[in-house]
């Protein structure tokens, strides 16, 4: 499953998609987007990459196992609710701070953002946790099928388009 066009396009698209997903995450609080959509875009980017290259390369590019994303994401979301307890408010009450350097930076940063980051990571992790093993099996079987067709001159890609 290596196509020159897809490979080249993916090499260009991949960083763009990942940047876009972070863009969605960051703007989410004020404009359409957010952690869920961002996480899905990121997952789609990695899936695209795994189609263009293969799954093991994708896993290397990910650097961490998908379940680590899930765990870190959940932890992120859970921790983001803790500061509220320090101020004697219900768990997960939001808490905002402002970073201001006059003339340069004016960022409002709050615990909901970290919560959203958690959502982003969980969605990314779950999607890849399901999709990557499926792709792996598909790869294995298409290899089997290819071997089979070389030996027996049979049809390849069985079950894909049965009539």
């Amino acid at each position, binding site marked *: 499953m290596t196509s020159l066009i897809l490979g080249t396009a993916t090499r260009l698209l991949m960083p763009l998609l990942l940047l876009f997903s972070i863009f*969605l995450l960051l703007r*989410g*609080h*004020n*404009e*359409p*987007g*957010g*952690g*869920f*959509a961002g996480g*899905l*875009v990121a*997952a*789609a980017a990695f*899936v695209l990459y795994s189609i263009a290259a293969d799954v093991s390369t994708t896993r290397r590019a990910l650097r961490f196992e*998908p*379940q680590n994303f*899930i765990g870190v*994401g*959940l932890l992120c*979301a*859970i921790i983001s*609710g803790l500061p509220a307890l320090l101020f004697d408010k219900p*768990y*997960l009450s*939001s808490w*905002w701070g402002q970073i201001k350097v006059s003339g340069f930076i004016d960022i*409002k940063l*709050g615990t*909901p*953002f970290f*919560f*959203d980051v*958690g*959502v982003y990571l*969980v*969605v990314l*992790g*779950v*999607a890849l*946790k*399901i*999709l990557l*093993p*499926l*792709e792996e*099996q*598909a790869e294995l*079987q298409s290899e089997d099928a290819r071997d089979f067709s070389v030996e027996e001159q049979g049809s390849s890609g069985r*079950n*894909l*388009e*049965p*009539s």
Partner: protein
Amino acid sequence: MNSLQQKKMMLTSLVLCGLVLALAAPAIHRVARGAAGYVLALYPFVAAIVLAVAGQKVVAGQAMREALPWASELGLSLSFSLDGLSLLFGLMISGIGVLVLIYAGGYLKGHPQLGRFYAYLLLFMASMLGLVLADNLLALFVFWEGTSISSYLLIGFNHRSETARKAALQALLVTGGGGLALLGGLILLGIVGGHWEISALTAQGDVIRAHALYDPILVLVLVGAFTKSAQFPFHFWLPNAMEAPTPVSAYLHSATMVKAGIYLLARLSPTLGGTEMWTGALTLFGGATMIVGGVLALLQTDIKRLLAYSTISALGTLTLLLGIGTTAAIQAFAVFLLAHALYKGALFMVAGTLDHETGTRDLEKMGGLRRVMPITAAMAILAAVSLAGVGPLFSFIGKELLFEAVLHSENSRTLLVATALLSGAFFVAAATIVAVKPFFGALKATPKAAHEAPPSLWLGPVVLAPLGLILGIFPGFVTYSLLSPAIAAILGRAEPLKLSLWHGFNPALALSGASLALGLLAYASWPALRRTQRGREALLGFGPARWYEVGLFALNRVASLQTRLLQNGYLRAYVMTIIVTTTALAGYTLITREGLPALLTRPLQEWDVRFYEAALAALIVLAAYAAVRADSRLAALAALGVVGYGVSLIYLFFGAPDLAMTQVLVDTLTVILFVLVFYHLPKFASLSGKFARVRDAAIAVCGGALMTTLVLVTNTVTLTEPISGYFLENSLPKGYGRNIVNVILVDFRALDTLGEITVLSLAGIGVFALLKLRPQGEKA
């Protein structure tokens, strides 16, 4: 201040310590090895001392109460109280508990799972203490269930034996089923009485007895108590529970747990008692249990089963006395309760010792053991004399009081006297069998060569059996300090109690003598009685144990039937069930509330559709139709994709860009997922027949129509002020965000989202497990 605080939580910590200790028991056993029994026995020992010290105040007339708020909105607080009744039970539980733990150390010496056994036993001990000390109805129920579960674990301790497993399950199902009834009864009681504290309910007795729900409350509570205390017709689980190691039989199934039902009846007797129904039910079932237990006891040759049936008979006696409910009956109740715990605990331990030393529990195979096991024999004979209720033992006083009580009962006196006389005779016969058969006559060869047991095994009987003698001669030891407060707690008023061995020549003494003579006569005919074995088995074939088996069988059949019907593993069947149920229920409500004509005309009234909206809707419908009609998976998938993107366009038209974006992304990933899954699916084929297709189409159309109508109706009906206004107003000032959807997700409703992503994570891991862990054979 500090000491006051500590004192306040004394009972609570007493119970909780036991639960903690149960967890630590295996570790303690690993460290202390053979001495673990003695070490762990410190817990009930300390508990007994604490209760005895605290009991001084109770005797003086002050009940102790302490409460730990739990969920106060639900009326749930962990509250304990100590009055005369709980003091009597608490001391029995902790006192015999000490002996049983030591005994268990000797009895199960070297057993690989002894640590676990200690843990179960302590779990039971703490639950039982909690049960008799609990003042809150719901807390009482929790501990009640705790005793059922620990009893289950203990009966099934030899889990490699099938009979043990069956007996454990039977005990759990019978007592657990009764527990459910009890829960219902207690909840009704709490609602009717307006309190969840038993101490507060006691004052509400008249209100509750006059309430319309009194009958159901009483029936439910009685079912709970009768199952737990093995009253006829629920008695059959108790003899089977003798599969448990003997320390368990001695402790749970004679001295304590089976008396939980009796305790509950005594505890609730000021609240529920005194009515005609109460008296009738308790005397009827108690009397029946006395006779059934007594007769069946004589038909046994297994010493433990014999003792178990005689326990059933004794439990019947206690129920009967509570049912009569006069001062004399309650006094007899208290004395009989204590006496029974003493001699029956001792006898069970003796039975276990015999089993341990000879390798058999069959009374026929033992004989002449008094020469090789002198201490055990002496204690067994003393305890058996106590079981027979012959003077000068404590149980003799109990028996006299029992006869007094039935002689002075108000209704059906003759029947009650006859019942008491007969059961007294059965007790005498059973006692004679237990005392004579194993210990007298010629020494018989047993599977193991018998010799005297180690001290840990005879310590229990040596303490308990002579205690029956001492208390018989000096009943003053316990009348004032232990029995009077308990009687006062049951009656709800203090009554003077004076016990003595000699009451003069009176009808009670005559009855006592008659029962002794009858009992010895029954013993003489014991060999003949047992020869009726075959006929008896045929008779028992129709007994309650058979009903249980049939019931269990039917339950299993119904369970597998409904599983095949509802949980058959076909996704399409699940979807169909869900849609049909929802459509039927929601549709019914809609039609009855709104009327069919209004529903049918409403869409036409609100016909305000732009051209492009109609076109998009038509496209979605067409695509859905194409998906259904497609003859290849890829085509169906493409058509579904069109549906998904169409829906996201609709979101966009109506100003929900967030939803639209998410929908597009999810749809994209779904298509990829589907393509990957294709590898694992069998060849595409059209499996449904014509009928199935028409049926499915009809269900689908109905479901769709319902959803459409529902959306239209909810648009016009306002049940409560929608919350969206609040979100719109507060999204920016309070959530610092202009994207309301996102602010809701990560701030206003963040806890929901946290739950959702947790579920998502679990689902992801679950799917992964399904993919990876399936058997190799199913790979392709």
